[in-house]
């Protein structure tokens, strides 16, 4: 049964675009052909193909639908901030076709029932695929193991303790070992809860001047260090989420060089903003982990370039306006990032941090591989999750242009360059800019 407004799986001819598919090392001007929800031809139409609809992609890039590693859709539990409906719609308008939802919903994703709830809701809305991370510990309390086998069976692509601390390193070790049993990837947030000590800004010059409780760089690097030791000990496949310091990036690079099964991602805000952006107590720049130094920002860009980070994400955290209306330390951290992921990522190519194909890799097959999903590819036979975007189109990011229910972003008022024109999900058109 499909909702009345669901678009149909048509035969699409995507014409005149530049196809960039890093998963298959493709970067070429060619047409793409879609039928029955899959890609059926690249450059050459399959025999007997007639299009139901033609999408004009001239001047545009045609790439796999973007894969977002972390999007908090706030449902279930915090629907005043956002819902699966609003955020999957926002994702589609940003060319994003797969979203990964962290386990810190309410109720927490530590039972198959919640996994199923989210899956059903997303399917009902039909605008983007939603995959979930299950809780590493029960109720994310960091004391007891969650039923990881059941969560895996229900469809979780990995497990994580989100931003909540695990009570001690012994419990963390056991949790990692248990995850290995079921070949689950553990998604780690490198934050030593005690060193972070309820801080709200990077412990540096700006926090010192403003008297803001600081989170030292060591809160991240100490956690990375003990996690790496346990990863080496247990052999678990681990992904480090949203690293913020140059030092941590170097530790990951070293670990990968030494052959540890680790991956890592960086979130867009940390590639643009620094502690200096907090100087006027702007609560839009209140994020956890905090924005670090100018040097860190450069080192994160370098690490992205060198391949230490295999993925870029938005770390999407929509909020209602009240959440950001208060003295800086009393506001809730997080940026609403789905709307600006594509243009801000494209700017990295403009800044020569990455070539365009390498950039698209970090947004498509890079995160897809981390999540263990077959997404992020335009190979013939693959599911037709496609993003068609115009890299030259400029627009202003503000409450009117944002599709997410949350408008909390320090990038408000920035001119964005690059916008999705059409998004296809499983061969159905789920978004067109013209509409």
């Amino acid at each position, binding site marked *: 049964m499909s909702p009345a407004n669901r678009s149909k799986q048509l035969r699409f001819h995507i014409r005149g675009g530049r196809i960039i598919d890093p998963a298959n090392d493709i970067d070429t001007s060619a047409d793409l052909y879609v039928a029955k929800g899959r890609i059926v031809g690249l450059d050459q139409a399959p025999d007997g193909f007639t299009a139901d609809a033609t999408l004009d992609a001239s001047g545009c890039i045609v790439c796999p639908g973007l894969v977002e590693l972390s999007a908090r859709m706030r449902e279930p539990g915090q629907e005043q901030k956002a819902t699966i409906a609003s955020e999957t719609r926002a994702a589609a308008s940003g060319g994003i076709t797969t979203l990964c939802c962290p386990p810190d919903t309410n109720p927490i994703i530590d039972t198959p029932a919640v996994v199923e709830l989210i899956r059903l809701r997303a399917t009902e809305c039909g605008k983007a695929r939603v995959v979930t991370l299950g809780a590493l510990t029960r109720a994310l309390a960091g004391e007891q193991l969650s039923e990881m086998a059941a969560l895996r069976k229900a469809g979780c692509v990995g497990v994580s303790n989100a931003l909540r601390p695990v009570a001690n390193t012994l419990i963390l070790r056991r949790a990692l070992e248990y995850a290995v049993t079921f070949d689950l990837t553990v998604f780690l947030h490198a934050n030593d809860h005690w060193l972070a000590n309820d801080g709200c800004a990077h412990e*540096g*010059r700006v926090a*010192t*001047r403003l*008297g*803001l409780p600081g989170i*030292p760089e060591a809160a991240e690097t100490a956690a990375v260090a003990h996690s790496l030791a346990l990863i080496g000990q247990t052999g678990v496949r681990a992904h480090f989420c949203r690293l913020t310091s140059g030092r941590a990036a170097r530790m990951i690079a070293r670990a990968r060089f030494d052959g540890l099964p680790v991956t890592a991602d960086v979130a867009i805000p940390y590639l643009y903003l620094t502690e200096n952006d907090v100087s006027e107590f702007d609560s839009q720049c209140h994020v956890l982990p905090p924005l670090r130094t100018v040097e860190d920002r450069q080192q994160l860009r370098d690490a992205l370039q060198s391949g230490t980070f295999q993925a870029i994400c938005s770390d999407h955290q929509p909020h209602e306006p009240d959440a950001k209306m*208060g*003295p800086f*330390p009393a506001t809730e951290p997080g940026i609403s990032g789905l709307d600006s992921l594509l243009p801000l990522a494209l700017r990295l190519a403009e800044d020569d941090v990455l070539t365009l194909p390498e950039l698209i890799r970090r947004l498509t097959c890079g995160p897809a591989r981390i999540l263990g999903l077959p997404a992020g590819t335009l190979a013939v036979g693959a599911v037709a999750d496609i993003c068609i975007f115009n890299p030259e189109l400029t627009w202003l990011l503000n409450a009117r242009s944002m599709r997410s229910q949350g408008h909390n972003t320090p990038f408000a008022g920035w001119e964005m360059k690059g916008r999705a024109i059409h998004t296809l999900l499983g061969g159905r058109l789920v978004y067109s800019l013209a509409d």
Partner: protein
Amino acid sequence: MNTRDLQIDSEGRLRHFLTLSGLNRQLLTEILDTAESFAGVTEQTVKKVPLLRGKTIVNLFFEASTRTRTTFELAAKRLSADVLNINITQSSAVKGETLLDTLRNIEAMHVDMFVVRHADSGAAHFIARNVAPHTSVINAGDGRHSHPTQAMLDMFTIRRVKGPDFGRLRVAIVGDILHSRVARSQIHALNLLNTGEVRIVAPRTLIPVHAESLGVRVFHDLRAGIQDVDVIMMLRLQHERMKGALLPSEHEYYELFGLTEKKLEHSSPDVTVMHPGPINRGVEMDSEVADGPRSVILEQVTHGIAVRMAVMSMAMQRREART
């Protein structure tokens, strides 16, 4: 809106007094000069002037403080303003009213000025950004960030005791710099007034990272830190610091950083000793120093009224031109 544009209106007049950051030496000197004229009022028989008659000033205190609130109240009353004291206790905040709602509710009663004390750094900025255009905000202390009127009364006191040339002075601030809004504001003020040398003295645990970037020399040894200084500004040590594993005991703190007559021999012979109060006798200094001839602690209290009268008047002036 950046801090400078928030505090100063388009004519260069003070509108909000939140932090010394973004202000210049000229404005600080104007505040000190204005405070001088109000000090004259305080010392007269007639201690009131009608300058702010008909104006309503609200002391909005989210953190308990009898001392600071009383001096602001007294300053406002000496300017003939009407004063309202609102103490928002923890339970009121817990009842769910947001800070913004509290603000709006009080603004609906048509007030002219808020004097705000809050436990969060940046609270005064937030309130200033969200008040009605004709309302002024004075920061009476926000978290660890800023306590600008305290710093100004300290500068006023130094100027009265040592004269207007701060360039020839060495000043040492001793104590819990890390958690102190008073220290941050004092450092700012001293640097804006081109003080010869500003030093901070404390154990490592009580010094914030990158402290030198504030424009100070860092010392961990009291004797070296107060060597040849002209002014020593002591900070209050709060009991919680022992619990947070920042210090082992008040006893050790007193041994290492407490001021005694003997230790003062290292400083300049006419060194002035200051403290924002209340003093922990036997911890920050012993009674001999607190009550001795070098101490200007009580004068600081008196000066606090004149300085606050100055800041309040300056922030209220030119209201009609503004609207």
